[in-house]
């Protein structure tokens, strides 16, 4: 359900948002997509088709760990937690992103 006017998230950006979201605490996949939508004030819609592959990729790299647990609604859900390596990666990527977006803004304003 990609919002017509909302940009499709690039892979790198999606991973950065997932890491950021998980830095606030462990969460399941659906929770992550919902939290991203809310905190971007509905601008960013996360396509589930790319959310889960991204999560598995992060898991494969060791930046997040996953465990089955019980959700507040009393259901069995897979919870993702940010690992120490993931925390470092978040800092690295946040810095890189700020640098990148700052530069892009600069270019856009210059014209």
């Amino acid at each position, binding site marked *: 359900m990609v919002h017509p006017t909302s940009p499709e998230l690039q892979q790198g950006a999606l991973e950065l948002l997932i890491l950021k979201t998980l830095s606030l605490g462990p969460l399941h996949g659906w929770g992550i997509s919902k939290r991203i939508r809310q905190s971007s004030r509905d601008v960013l819609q996360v396509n*589930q*088709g790319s959310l889960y*592959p991204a999560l598995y990729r992060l898991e*494969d790299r060791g930046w997040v760990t996953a465990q089955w647990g019980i959700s507040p*609604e009393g259901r069995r859900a897979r919870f993702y937690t940010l690992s120490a390596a993931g925390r470092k990666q978040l800092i690295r990527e946040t810095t890189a992103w700020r640098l990148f977006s700052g530069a892009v803004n600069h270019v856009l304003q210059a014209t």
Partner: protein
Amino acid sequence: MSLLQRWRRRLRALVRKTAVDREMDDEMRFHLDMEAEEAIRAGLAPAEARRRAVLAFGGVQRFREEGREARGVTALDDVAMDLRYAARTLVRSPAFAVVAILTLALGIGANTAIFSVVNAVLLRPLPYDDPESLMSVWDGGHSKAEFTRVRDQNRTLERVAAYMDRVGFSLSGEGEPARLTGAYATADLFGVLGADPALGRTFAPGEDLPGTARVVVLSDALWRERFGADIEIIGRRLDLDGVSHTVIGVMPRDFWFPRRETRLWVPLQLNEGIPGDFWGSYGPFIVGRVRRGVPREQVRDDVRAIGERLRVENPVWTPTDYYLRGLDVIPLASRIVPSGSRRLLLVLLGAVGMVLLIACANVANLLIARGTAREREIAVRATLGAARPRLIRQMVTESLALAAVGALAGLGLAFGGVRLLVRLLPQDTPRLADVSVSGGVLLYTAGLAVVAGLVFGLVPALRLSRPVLAASLGEGGARAGAGIRQRRLAGVLVAGEIALSVVLAVGAGLLLRSFARILAVDPGFHTEQVVTARVSPPKARWASPEQQQTFYRELLERLRGSPAVAAAGITNQAPFEETNEIMAMWVDGYTTDPNELEVMNHRKVTPGFFDAMGIPLLRGRALGVEDRANAPPVALIDEATAQRYWSGKDPVGGRIRYPWPGWVTIVGVVRTVKNNDLTDQATPTVYVPFEQAPLGPSHMTVVARAASSPVGALAAVRAAVRELAPDVPVSDERTMTQRIGDSVAQPRFASLLLSSFGLLALVLGAVGTYGLIAYTTQRRTREIAVRMALGASARDVVGTVVGEGAVLAAGGVTVGLVMALALTRFLRGMLFEVSPTDPLTFVTVPLVLGAVALLASYLPARRATRVDPMIAIRTE
């Protein structure tokens, strides 16, 4: 997360595929449920909510695929798929698979077998504590004085001991009398090696000084074989050479020093009170543990300084400048494994490596040939979107699988091969009993398989994956030109095979010629019908010269009475026994300096010795019964002695003497015989009558010429000794033919093995050439058919094809000869009267190999001319 962990998880994901899939399904279901519930809360009907949720999620199958890829499962999946694909293609062309696997199995199996031996003999560390710091100090035999001074005065060694190898002991008392190989050792030997006994204790400090109780430490083998692993053995008394020794300890099963056959250790007596023995008699080797961090050169300088002081201190004789020449400190491992065995094994390892290279080249060629036939398949796959790296990966997987199967088959060959090698190897090769296909060897084989798989797989894969779409997909005309690159590569590979075959064949040829030269040497005595056996009457009971003389005289009388024996004699040393007794002699009219006496082989013999051995008298008179102890001392010399010291003049009537006073008159000259080895330089030898000779060890060798069968003669010797003295051991019973056979074990082994490898290389090379020519000719069938239809004769066609083979052969042979010229110098020490650049070998080998290569290309050429042109042109 480490790479290892990541791959372990991926592997788990692959193996437990369904479990992981189920996990993903569960997660997806949870997501859909939550999405739907939210929609219901927003007021949608449950069915509509569900539909929207699924719609929002996208394709379920796509989710699974992408999930799996993200988890890194696909990479492994690909490998599994490639393997399945490889298995299918191999099964589909069984002839190719069988030939390739067999070739690799031969190459890898031979390498594994040789490496098993190299690993056990050369690479595995000695079974002592920190073996790298153990050195053979002042390598060579030494006097007890030299050892004592090195022990007390050095500044670079932690601990020092001396040992004397291969000492024969007669064990008598209970059961069959036995002759055992043991060693003398100073008290600290076991301390230096860092070896603890399995039972009891080893030598205590001071146990090597005179006046202490006689003790002995047993090896595990002796303890088990002779004493039935009796736990109560400590404190038992053993009769060694007629002297009672107390057993104080038993060493563990895996301990040996300095060789596997050493059965017991007895203290070496360091008796400073007998200057002649302490300063003058040589034998023990010195082993020391170097202090941590001290380089070998420093130890050598340290020992040299001690040596300089010893030259001055020596009260018995004055060492010359020669004394310290060649003084060296070498690793104990090099002392225990002699350089001859080392060189032999390294040469074989190199040779067998070349065989594997040839095998790899052959398989690479097979792959190229088959690959060209698969060009269309590969082109189709490339067109359908397979990336080049993906294609290469698939082809390399295929060759690695091939190598793995080849290695497994090779391992089977290696198990048999190792057993064969151990039987064929010279029996005096050290650590032979340790040779096995061990874990380290398996690792080596696995590594070999991977390297081989990459070597023969990568080159064809890189070649074949290169896009040649138009040519391959298009039909007909373009096809004749396709594969020219491949053919050129295959040609280079085949020429390389021929070159390596030339190197191996030249090496084999040189060794064979050398072996033939050795066998052609005349030892100087009769070898057929002559038997020898060592008789060891314990010295304690036959102590005086008279007692010993009586014993041997009676023994000889009994032998002469036996119908199985035609002639018999006694000597302290028969030719081709492992030891050699030498003596420093003063030669009248030649020697001038008492410190520079002449070293000669010293033989004590009874008159019958020469008759039994068939050594002819050339001048003067033979020894006789009249040369008794109280008669004037006489001696015979051999031609070598006569030549060296009497050059041309008649030595009969000349005089020599021992380092002590008393002239010995030379009464005759006998023919020179080979003493230890057929390749020996003749060393001057002096024969003195047994009854006049200085008293030495009591054991002697009986030499007998058999009346009919050698076996009967040996039985007669055993029987005669048993009747005379049942507790005297008879050992080392062998015919002279066996002795000489054993002495050439190493050159025989070397030439046999290198010839086998050479032959294997030749066959592989011929198969490679044949395969390549047959393949190119087949691809040119149409061209040949056209030419023949246009009037070319069969002879023209054969000439063209064989010419192609000749170019390959000429190139390969030339390169091979250059390589051989550079490499055969490593064989120098193994060659006898044959130069490493022996012209005959260097001419014959290329001729033979060239002929084989031409034949290998002639066969397919002839077949090509028999094809009916019409059929050939139509089938294209």
